[in-house]
């Protein structure tokens, strides 16, 4: 490792930290403003012009709060939990290309790294749930365990479709290979990945672990002050990371006409985040058994089918490449049609409501 490498790493660590933190602040403001609009409110408008300083005001408020550790809590576990929950979100950004060549580390296992690191955050939630010595937070941790383990399966399977087409795990190569955004070639994969990620970063309608109306605040019920702030920031950091990964995998990353690549990247990230907000502000929450059923009965079969379909298409494409002008146009339309048809048909298998257990 020579001197230039070190400088590259140093610069990018600073860039990513700056990016993540500024995006978190922007996202907090955006979320409040956009959800305010969805709800016929104005959103924050007192602190600074259009309320842009709201996030800072929140932050100062949170910092001045008393730091509480419950009497019977597992002190160290309670203390470390916010850190363990927050760090993985930043780590994911290490392999996200902001534009061609602008990346901390172009790992050749990029996407696998994302999935692996993404699984770490749950440990922090566990620690918070257990360490707080609170029944609500314990229920929340249990829900998280079930949810993350279940949703990881369809998420990983939906990535396989992308990997099959590109033949590489590297995030940069994946972006390079996207002649059109993969959302068109892999509509089913995109939907499964998007919904699965929503569940993994615990945003509505899959936000069962902090279900306000059921288990109050879930795993962070006993947290206050800076530790709570870290969870709060972590939630947005995960949202930033998830939006960036979805942008890279399915929305052709930095690519786009006219505008500079970095701007395109930011626009797409913002769009994905806006989708999260849209879901959050319009949908009620699923029940825990419906949540699991959705993962195993709906997303998983469709993800398996998607892998099978994409595999067959990749094999076929290799033969016909020349005659289709280097792009599989027929598959584009076939996949879009199949995705629509399958989703409609498969949803017919679900019986709505009910779910009583004899006790």
């Amino acid at each position, binding site marked *: 490792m020579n001197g230039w490498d070190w400088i590259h790493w140093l610069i990018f660590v600073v860039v990513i930290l700056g990016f993540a933190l500024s995006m978190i602040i922007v996202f907090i403001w955006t979320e409040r403003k956009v959800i305010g609009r969805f709800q016929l409110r104005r959103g924050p408008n007192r602190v600074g012009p259009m309320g842009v300083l709201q996030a800072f005001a929140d932050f100062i408020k949170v910092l001045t709060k008393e730091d509480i550790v419950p009497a019977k809590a*597992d002190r160290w576990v309670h203390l470390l939990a916010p850190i363990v929950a927050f760090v993985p979100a930043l780590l994911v950004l290490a392999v996200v290309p902001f534009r061609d060549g602008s990346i901390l580390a172009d790992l050749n296992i990029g996407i696998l790294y994302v999935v692996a690191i993404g699984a770490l955050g749950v*440990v922090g939630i566990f620690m918070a749930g257990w360490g707080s010595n609170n029944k609500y937070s314990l229920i929340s941790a249990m829900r998280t365990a079930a949810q993350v383990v279940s949703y990881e399966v369809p998420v990983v399977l939906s990535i396989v479709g992308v990997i099959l087409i590109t033949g590489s795990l590297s995030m940069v190569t994946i972006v390079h290979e996207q002649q059109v955004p993969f959302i068109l070639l892999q509509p089913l994969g995109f939907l499964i990945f998007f919904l699965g990620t929503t569940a993994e970063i615990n945003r509505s309608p899959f936000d069962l672990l902090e279900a306000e109306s059921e288990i109050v605040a879930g795993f962070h019920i006993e947290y206050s002050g800076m530790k709570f702030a870290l969870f709060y920031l972590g939630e947005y950091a995960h949202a930033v990371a998830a939006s960036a990964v979805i942008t890279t995998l399915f929305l052709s990353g930095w690519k786009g006409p006219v505008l500079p690549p970095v701007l395109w990247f930011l626009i797409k990230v913002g769009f994905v985040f806006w989708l999260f907000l849209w879901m959050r502000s319009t949908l009620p929450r699923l029940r825990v058994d419906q949540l699991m059923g959705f993962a195993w009965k709906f997303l998983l079969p469709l993800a398996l089918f998607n892998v099978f379909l994409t595999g067959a298409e990749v094999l076929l494409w290799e033969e016909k490449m020349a005659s289709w002008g280097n792009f599989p146009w027929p598959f584009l339309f076939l996949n879009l049609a199949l995705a629509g048809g399958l989703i409609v048909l498969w949803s017919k298998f679900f019986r709505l409501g009910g779910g009583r257990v004899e006790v």
Partner: protein
Amino acid sequence: MGTGSELAFWLLAVLIVGSALAVVVLRDVFRAALFLVLCFFAVAGIYIILSADFLAAVQVLIYVGAIAVLIIFAIMLTREAQRGSPSNRLQIPVLIVGLLLLAVIVAVVVDTSWPAADVPPPAPTTGDIAEKLFDKNEGFVLPFEIASVLLLAAMIGAIVLVRERKEE
């Protein structure tokens, strides 16, 4: 091997041994499980030093993301977790067996001559692993498939065992 990776190796080695000891010694089962996570994670670090990046990612994904989570899940379901791990009268026999195993491993490690390859490690390991695993002639496609069928059978078996019977 540069000094950087040597330093990293020793740090990781201490971390692995320390956390592994903590897993065994700690009375608080939940903390023990957390140290297990740390141990798995450090092992992934060792893989990275060995340029086995694919393996490292899989290590984190499977061991931390799935196995450790399941262990923690099981601990949370147990009410006795608060009481800590109880000791029983097998302590001394287990100690002897453990020491014996350690002796064997140390003997083997000391006895083996460790040849270092001249070739630099292959850069993307993923493709090579895949070819070794699924090659038409020398691959392990059949064992792989058998293993998957076995796992599937185990999964179905688990579901059948815990499934609630509808009473007629």
